């Protein structure tokens, strides 16, 4: 079993990610542990990857979670790079960390990035990698709105929504992707993981995960001192948006309809946040001046 774990770790480390990942003690979770049914395990057998990844995330350690998140982050950044604006990137990291510090997982390596993309979307990957598109940032009417969106994504990380979805989809995806691959098993394992990620970000999480992230998001923003209604306000803006607009199409495809999200928050928020003096925050232009220093 140890051999197997080491092999997997080697596979993952021997990726394009190279040295940057080398100090991370992660491997594909679940491999090499907890399998008492070790008879007949064949390292070259693709079938084992299916079963092992399938049960993998139940026993995922935090370093493993972070490692998977980093793989997915690299994929998203492969689709769209960061906006070349250090002040904007530092600002979003600072705001994002302040929000994450109000949660039960303040010590994850929270990292935030603005993707150079005109569309309107936001993504989270396991372990605390959060992305918003430039198009989203430009359409925010206040800092409280941006805080609400970031807090929604933080919610996905807190509840390990993507990690659980990987686990749920692993069997299916590996049958599709790994079995069709030729050659020996190991390189396919990482490639399969990445393919699961691509499918996941293209198809979206379960609706209930999105609703849960909304519930968490309004609270996290409020805890950080912002108007809790930033996220609901963004959702109301989305209600006014056209589904035929290509800048919103992936978001609409991967999320419940905005009206249903607003309706749930209406039902739950009521007067719970009335006594708080949450603020709207600073204008983005002021923040850019501030963070250019």
């Amino acid at each position, binding site marked *: 079993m140890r051999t197997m774990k080491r092999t997997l770790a080697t596979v993952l480390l021997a990726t394009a990610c190279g040295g940057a990942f080398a100090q991370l003690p992660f491997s594909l979770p679940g491999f090499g542990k907890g399998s008492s049914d070790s008879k007949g395990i064949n390292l070259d057998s693709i079938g084992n990857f299916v079963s092992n990844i399938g049960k993998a995330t139940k026993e995922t350690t935090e370093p493993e979670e972070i490692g998977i998140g980093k793989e997915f982050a690299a994929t998203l950044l*492969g689709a769209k790079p960061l906006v070349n604006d250090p002040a904007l990137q530092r600002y979003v990291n600072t705001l994002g960390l*302040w929000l994450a510090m109000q949660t039960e997982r303040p010590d994850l390596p929270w990292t935030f990035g603005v993707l150079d993309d005109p569309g309107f979307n936001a993504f989270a990957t396991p372990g605390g990698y959060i992305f918003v598109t430039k198009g989203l940032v430009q359409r925010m009417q206040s800092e409280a709105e941006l805080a609400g969106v970031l807090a929604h994504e933080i919610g996905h990380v807190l509840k390990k929504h993507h990690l659980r979805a990987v686990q749920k989809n692993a069997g299916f995806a590996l049958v599709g992707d790994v079995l069709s691959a030729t050659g020996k098993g190991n390189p396919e394992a990482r490639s399969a993981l990445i393919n699961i990620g691509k499918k996941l970000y293209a198809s979206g999480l379960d609706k209930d995960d999105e609703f849960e992230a909304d519930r968490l998001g309004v609270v996290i923003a*409020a805890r950080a001192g912002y108007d809790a209604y930033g996220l609901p306000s963004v959702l109301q803006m989305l209600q006014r948006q056209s589904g035929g607009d*290509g*800048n919103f199409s992936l978001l609409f495809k991967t999320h419940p309809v905005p009206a249903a999200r607003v309706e749930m928050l*209406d039902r739950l928020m009521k007067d719970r946040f009335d006594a708080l003096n949450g603020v709207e925050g600073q204008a983005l232009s002021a923040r850019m001046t501030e963070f250019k220093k």
Partner: protein
Amino acid sequence: MKRWILMLTGLLAGAAWAESALTSRSTELQSQPQSDSAVITTLTENTKVEVIARKGAWSQVKTATGQTGWVRMLSLKSEVSGQQAPAASSSNPVGALGNLLTAGRTSNTGTVTTGVRGLSEEDLQNAQANPAEVEKMQRFSVDKNAAQSFAQRSKLSPAKVDYLPEPTAAGNTQRNAEGG
């Protein structure tokens, strides 16, 4: 830089130009953005209002009969439901400004194909891992002291707020039971 100025203009525009909306449920029009303020009238579901301003949980609205007051912002919905083509954007200055912000987008209607579109399924499918960009992203990360000092200079006071419960299937009953 230009786009931030545009966005600032958008903020001002949002405050200056009214936008119409419908009530998504029966809701009380109140004199102040406070739940204990006087109730002016009760607006039935699907009452059309002009939204004048927003303050936290509240939106200031004006009714067709000229009454002005405050309603819970979440009791409002847009005149078109999400994912349908909204009315011409010319009636919505904020939307029109949004068009300016998205190069190549000339219309808000669902039927028009746009030259520019956001990250797509195809982009994801074709993506090659970019670990160098991950490293770059990490270089922009900050520590807790930086976040703390950001909060202090921004007058962001942490508040103790419990997470919201999962909604029950009997959500409507619960709403009635708990009242306002």
